[in-house]
């Protein structure tokens, strides 16, 4: 059961929000982030750094994340990433029980 893929999603595509999809899988080595944002040119690096900070705080080193940003504030992006990761972890916990 431990080899299963676990996914989580949070947020929306509404203005000022962000839709975050995360996937834990045995094949995933390291952190891979796909970012799509209207402000990617200006803030892309900052957004990636924020996502990595959240993952670091949660102790996550192997994960795939897809982020559709709709002009969200940094604190919103951080909240949505944390929620998506925790939902995936919860799914994982439920499957292992």
């Amino acid at each position: 059961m431990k080899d299963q893929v676990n996914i989580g999603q949070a947020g929306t595509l509404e203005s000022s929000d962000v839709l975050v999809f995360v996937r834990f899988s045995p094949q995933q080595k390291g952190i891979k982030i796909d970012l799509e944002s209207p402000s990617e040119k200006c803030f892309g690096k900052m957004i990636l750094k924020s996502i990595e900070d959240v993952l670091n705080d949660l102790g996550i080193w192997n994960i795939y994340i897809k982020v559709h940003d709709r002009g969200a504030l940094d604190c919103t992006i951080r909240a949505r990433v944390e929620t998506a990761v925790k939902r995936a972890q919860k799914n994982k916990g439920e499957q292992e029980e």
Partner: protein
Amino acid sequence: MKKRLRRTALYVPGNDPSMIQNAGIFGSDAIVLDLEDAVSVNEKDAARLLVRNALKNINYGNTEVIVRINSFFTPFGKDDLEIIGRAHPDGIRVPKVETIQDIQNIEKFLDRIEAEEKFEKNSIKILPSIESALGLFNVFEIAKASQRIEVINFGAEDYTADIGAERTKEGKELFDIRTRMLLAARVAGIEVQDSVFAHVRDTEGLIRETQFIKQLGFDGKSVIHPSQILPVHQVFTPSQEEIARAKRIIFAIKEAEKKKSGVISLDGRMVDAPVVAKARRVLDYAQAAGLL
């Protein structure tokens, strides 16, 4: 410290980033970031983290920032308080309070969080919401249940459903709860806010209801749309005549104090402590409206 006015408390859905980030710009005296009725059951976890991050990062200026958590009788209430408490909102609005025990449960939680986070003791306020017959029955005890309580309010929809009343725009069915809430608040020495006026497009109805609750003695009202803020503030804004008289009363009492005289008369009427208190209140509202 300057006394906080509580004319309006604007409800903001706790899972809507756009509304959360703009909540402070409409000029309400308080905002209530709502984790309860405005958030669906499967988004409670997301809203909790969104509101926590907003509290830590968004500058709402002088606006009082309140979070309405879910009741401790739901699976969400304790997690809400554990996470939101650590982001130090100005207050926690607690829905469906029915007994002193409900307040004590919240208080214990906040005592622990404040100690662990090294926050000032009692710096997070508790704002109980009365929404049932039992809650109203116990409201005198609830209002006095904690030093953290500075204001109480009630939820008209849940309350009328609980007592079996018909909910009307006119609101006669709320007369009893309004007067009891008011009396309980004044006995406890705290403030009291009215429930929401749900008909967003009926500004005249809102003004009528606000005039009525002001006449009863309420300090303010919860609102559900930014367009309701200004009409409520206007009702609570004193007239030029009221302001002028209040100023004269304060001036007269200061002069009397200089002469060490307790009671004075102004325009042939006695001016004593309650008159002075009312005058101060008028000037507080005038100042908040930018008239001083």
